[in-house]
């Protein structure tokens, strides 16, 4: 029997729409000769952070899911299919497209790890769906992801740069995807978590958020290493390109955010979250942040859902500063520091 599923046809997959170049020559990778210690550091970090959706008890969210209104459930499904699309692009095209431009063989290996984890991320949304929703609801959300013009445009913009022939521009597009484009989607599970809803789903999303931080940091770092070798003129070209691309994506992201969040009145706070993360994406690429703090003041509940430590006072300087005692440091052996 042939199943025709327009949405899930392989021909619609990002990998089929254009040719990804392969590395022209491969030598056996020697992990005992390291040219860039970041490759090893990031490889180890990614391996230590490895996880699978099966380890998160998503079924504990079923009761909570049933307290959401049908509109809230639909919004959540749509947000997650949007994230699935980005993870699919990054897994099948984005991270893979960086491999031919890698400077070291270990960098190539790190990209294969990144690509695989993106596929795990993409699959984990399906775990959420199958736990919480019915098949028609799932199909409906995937259909929406194909039909929403702003989501499709977002995918198209990034895909165009992945197909292009400029390695540095590909890294910029990839870093903006990892460090900026996901966040209109990540907002919602953090919002639910701050209201004690879908908390296990939020735990899973936090694992994805943690991975994306390492991905954005590493690709941004490799971008900066590549940029160092370029002429002043070319650096300026890349900088202009980066900001133009960010503005293009940002305009589209605002539209996309409105499509999703206007109905629940969260658009303005989501935009602050976008600004906050756009700044971090720029910094990962080595550029100064562009949004001032007046438009990056994300609601504390969201920041606290993202990073439980963030609601503690991390600014001793602005506090009263009198409520601590400097103790005498204890003798410390090497093994004491073996954290």
């Amino acid at each position, binding site marked *: 029997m042939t199943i025709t599923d327009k949405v899930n046809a392989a021909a619609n997959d990002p990998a089929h729409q254009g040719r990804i170049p392969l590395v022209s020559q491969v030598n056996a990778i020697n992990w005992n000769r390291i040219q860039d210690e970041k490759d090893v*550091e990031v490889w180890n970090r990614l391996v*230590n*952070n490895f996880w699978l959706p099966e380890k998160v008890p998503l079924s504990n969210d079923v009761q909570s899911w049933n307290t959401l209104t049908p509109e809230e459930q639909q919004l959540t499904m749509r947000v997650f299919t949007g994230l699935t699309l980005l993870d699919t692009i990054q897994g099948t095209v984005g991270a893979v497209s960086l491999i031919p431009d890698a400077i070291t063989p270990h960098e190539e290996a790190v990209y294969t790890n990144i690509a695989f984890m993106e596929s795990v991320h993409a699959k984990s949304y399906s775990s959420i769906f199958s736990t919480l929703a019915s098949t028609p609801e799932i199909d409906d959300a995937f259909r929406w992801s194909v039909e929403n013009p702003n989501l499709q445009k977002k995918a198209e913009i990034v895909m165009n740069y992945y197909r292009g022939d400029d390695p540095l521009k590909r890294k910029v597009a990839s870093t903006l995807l990892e460090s900026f484009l996901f966040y209109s989607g990540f907002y919602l599970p953090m919002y639910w978590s701050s209201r004690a809803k879908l908390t296990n789903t939020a735990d899973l999303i936090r694992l994805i958020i943690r991975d994306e931080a390492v991905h954005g940091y590493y690709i941004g770092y490799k971008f900066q290493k590549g940029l160092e070798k370029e002429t002043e003129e070319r650096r300026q070209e890349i900088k202009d390109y980066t900001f133009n691309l960010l503005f293009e994506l940002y305009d589209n992201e605002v539209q996309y955010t409105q499509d999703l969040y206007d109905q629940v009145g969260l658009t303005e706070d989501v935009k602050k979250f976008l600004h906050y993360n756009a700044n971090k994406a720029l910094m990962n690429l080595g550029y100064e942040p562009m949004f001032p703090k007046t438009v990056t003041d994300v609601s504390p509940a969201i920041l606290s859902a993202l990073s*439980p430590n963030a609601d503690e006072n991390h600014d001793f*300087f602005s506090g009263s500063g009198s409520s601590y005692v400097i*103790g005498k440091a204890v*003798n410390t052996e*090497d093994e004491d520091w073996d*954290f």
Partner: protein
Amino acid sequence: MTKLIYFSSISGNTHRFVQKLGVEATRIPLYARDPAITAEEPFVLLTPTYGGGGEGGAVPKQVIRFLNDANNRNLIRGVIAAGNTNFGEAYGIAGDIISSKCKVPTLYKFEVFGTPDDVSVVHDGLESFWQTH
């Protein structure tokens, strides 16, 4: 010797923050083959956070080596940590680990190489900190 001692990996983000602070600072060497540095007066330590939670290794080994010197531990007065809120509970946790180990306050946390606001808060904060410490 200076009142600000910091570590920055080859990605250079923490180094960049220190440059923006515009204060004199000493960098903990990257490689074990480089001569170790020794503090000669009270100082604040600035360090990135490694890892991403749970698995250890949050404090860079170069910083551990520096703090394994009792003289340096006796002179530390506070710690500032860089990190990323994406790491959740592990955000800037190198600061908290050093804080509890050395019994000094975590003064501030910032992300990547800091926003202009972070730079200005830390710059002014350190100035007034040293007037009372």
